């Protein structure tokens, strides 16, 4: 314990040295005023805004809940996913009145999909397919026990949770939710709002240099774009200024994490990755402070850190669930429901890898083609997850870890 603390303090001090040095060396005379918390103000009023992200996260939560209600139809789920302003799709306050929708921002980043529109619509259609599968394959079999080749319910060992899977053992709700972490949250944050093409779009730099705020708002457009990236990660936190207040072991029990932030928390709980949540938070904060100080090099350095580490969170989680599934299949008494649940989460995180972003490049850590290859291995047997072997799960795990700076063993426990 003592050693750990010492190490933390050392890292922290090294971090402070780093910050102060970089100020001195790179840009003499300019001071970046970095606040303790994610609090930025202009004329005494907050200049931080990411309500649209909070709204979409809340919508996504309701969609995921609806996947587990067999009374819903494909049309109802489709309408929730592609919400139209004023339609009565949600129960949460203000969601129906909102003009935002989840589907419109799925695979919709400027860096990856503004030109690649064919791929963007193919991805949106995959999400539609999961909705259709849940409504038309799984809901009708809600009271049928699943077997290889037959959709239905399957209960975990020890009187555990009941899962609902398709004929190949895949939980569509998990595939949908975990894929959305990549296709909505990570893609929008890493490949849209943190990209120069968005941050520096139109007159953004000039306006930010001159303190010209967006019409009727208290922020410059560049500040707002950065905050929107932040919102896709922390938009559901009870206190957005201090989103890591409850990070640490067991904090998920408070239920204040959602989608991407939930798994940031989980990865941070793994002693091999402790500190990653704070690294990301600090980079967001310093990057935003750099925008205020008009220090765009520092801003882009922070964007690179965020891209690298959020990509890593997704990859660690993919490998983690593959390994959990492998352990479950290796047992003599196989608990298929638990294995399928882990592998369905893993499916979504693998899918999300195509939206990751290598820092200082225009590419994901794994391309869409590579991701499709891995999912083909995972689901390729006649009966999908009923047929997948531990050896295949190990091979997929290694293929993913090889593209990152961690080992299968580090991610797997």
């Amino acid at each position: 314990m003592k050693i750990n603390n010492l190490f933390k303090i050392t890292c922290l001090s090294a971090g402070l040295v780093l910050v102060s040095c970089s100020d001195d060396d790179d840009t003499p005379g300019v001071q970046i005023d970095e606040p303790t918390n994610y609090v930025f103000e202009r004329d005494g009023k907050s200049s931080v805004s990411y309500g649209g992200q909070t709204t979409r996260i809340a919508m996504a939560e309701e969609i995921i809940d609806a996947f587990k209600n067999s009374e819903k139809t494909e049309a109802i789920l489709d309408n929730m996913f592609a919400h139209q302003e004023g339609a009565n799709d949600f129960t949460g306050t203000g969601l129906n009145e909102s003009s935002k929708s989840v589907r419109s921002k799925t695979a919709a980043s400027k860096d990856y999909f503004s030109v690649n529109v064919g791929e963007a619509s193919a991805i949106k259609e995959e999400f539609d397919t999961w909705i259709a599968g849940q409504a038309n394959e799984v809901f009708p079999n809600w009271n049928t026990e699943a077997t290889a080749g037959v959709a239905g319910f399957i209960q975990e060992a020890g009187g555990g949770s009941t899962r609902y899977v398709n004929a190949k053992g895949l939980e569509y709700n998990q595939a949908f939710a975990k894929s959305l972490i990549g296709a909505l949250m990570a893609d929008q944050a890493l490949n849209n709002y943190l990209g120069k093409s968005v941050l520096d779009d139109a007159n953004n730099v000039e306006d930010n240099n001159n303190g010209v705020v967006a019409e009727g708002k208290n922020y410059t457009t560049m500040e707002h774009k950065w905050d929107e990236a932040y919102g896709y990660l922390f938009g559901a936190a009870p206190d957005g200024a201090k989103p890591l207040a409850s990070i640490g072991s067991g904090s998920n029990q408070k239920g204040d994490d959602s989608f991407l932030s939930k798994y940031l928390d989980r990865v941070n709980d793994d002693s091999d990755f402790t500190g990653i949540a704070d690294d990301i938070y600090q980079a967001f904060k310093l990057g935003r402070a750099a925008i205020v100080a008009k220090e765009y090099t520092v801003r882009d350095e922070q964007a690179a850190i965020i891209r690298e580490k959020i990509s890593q969170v997704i990859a660690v989680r993919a490998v983690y669930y593959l390994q959990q599934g492998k352990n479950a299949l290796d047992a003599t008494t196989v608990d298929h429901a638990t294995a399928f649940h882990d592998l369905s989460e893993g499916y979504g995180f693998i899918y999300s890898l195509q939206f990751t972003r290598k820092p200082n490049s225009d590419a994901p850590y794994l391309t869409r083609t590579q991701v499709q290859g891995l999912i083909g291995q995972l689901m390729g047997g006649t009966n999908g997850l009923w047929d997948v072997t531990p050896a295949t799960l190990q091979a997929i795990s290694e293929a993913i870890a090889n593209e990152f700076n961690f080992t299968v063993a580090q991610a797997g426990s």
Partner: protein
Amino acid sequence: MKKLLFLFVAILFVVAGCSSSDDTNSDNPGTDTFNRKALLENIADNIAIPAYKSFKEEMANLKTATSEFVTTADESNLVKLRTAWLDAYVSWQSVSMFEIGKAEEISFRNFMNVYPVTTTEIEKNITDGGYDLNSVSKQDEQGFGALDYLLNGLADSDTGIVAFYSSDVNATKYKTYLSDVVERMDTLTTQVVNDWTGDYRDSFVNNSGSSATSSLDKLVNDFLFHYEKHLRAGKIGIPAGVFSNTTFNEKVEAFYKKDASKALFNANLTALQDFFNGKHFGSTTTGESLKTYLDFLNTIKEEEDLSTLINNQFNLARTEASNLADDFSAEVRTNNNLMLDAYKELQKNVVFLKVDMLSALSIRVDFVDADGD
């Protein structure tokens, strides 16, 4: 940047240097000459196997009592059967931590003692027939928890319960299900006991190294997992609402019997502490154990022997739990703070056992907390 990197690396070296000079020799397997095999022998020959044999006898009694009740379903036989069930249930508490070997292979604990059970599914099994108790999906429809429901929960009075097995339109089906559940528990128990008394004893004792797959590393993990998940959480924490926003009085062990949950808890707590101390089953004699291992390594924490701290904490938990009612379900409903107090004392030992003891013994944790979603 390069200068900084160098500085950082240099600091790392300083930290690494500190850690190697500060640490006790317990982290170095080269200096650990403790006789692990003697410890494993004591566990096998004087604790696990005698406890299993005793449990097997209780299961045989339960089977006999079941067969008598099925032959003559009256109140007198119900009372006898219930006693046999509770005796076996208490005896189970001495073996449930040994989820290793055959028990691990067949997922023994999950087929024997999942609670709460799903009564709607049990009723459906009885009415529809055609159930497969081998399925992991049916673990919450069998075992001691299912018997709790079948012997205590069908009606408010013994007359009412007996009626299900005598005058009810499905009486034959109730008898069949009761017999099937007991038969399966007995079969699984026989498999596990035969393995221990057969080849497994020697392979267990001879696997005396220190690696993730060695007997001691695995068994210590099983012991800790049982302490955390089944004693601390299952018997106290979950019903008391420690892991949720509400309490669950219906999730206590032996919920339908009402006054047995404390006895089952105490039996399990004692079994776990006795295991730690290497106390022979049914005797006051002690042998090589986790305690003697820690004493051999001379593991000191806060200027006190770690083994003493652990034993003191076991005793504090027992004392705190002595304030609880026999019926934990009633305790949760009427004064849950006492449940939470007991939980706190149990939780304190998790730190001593899982952090300090494991570090002293150089054993790695091989389980992770489940996701919960």
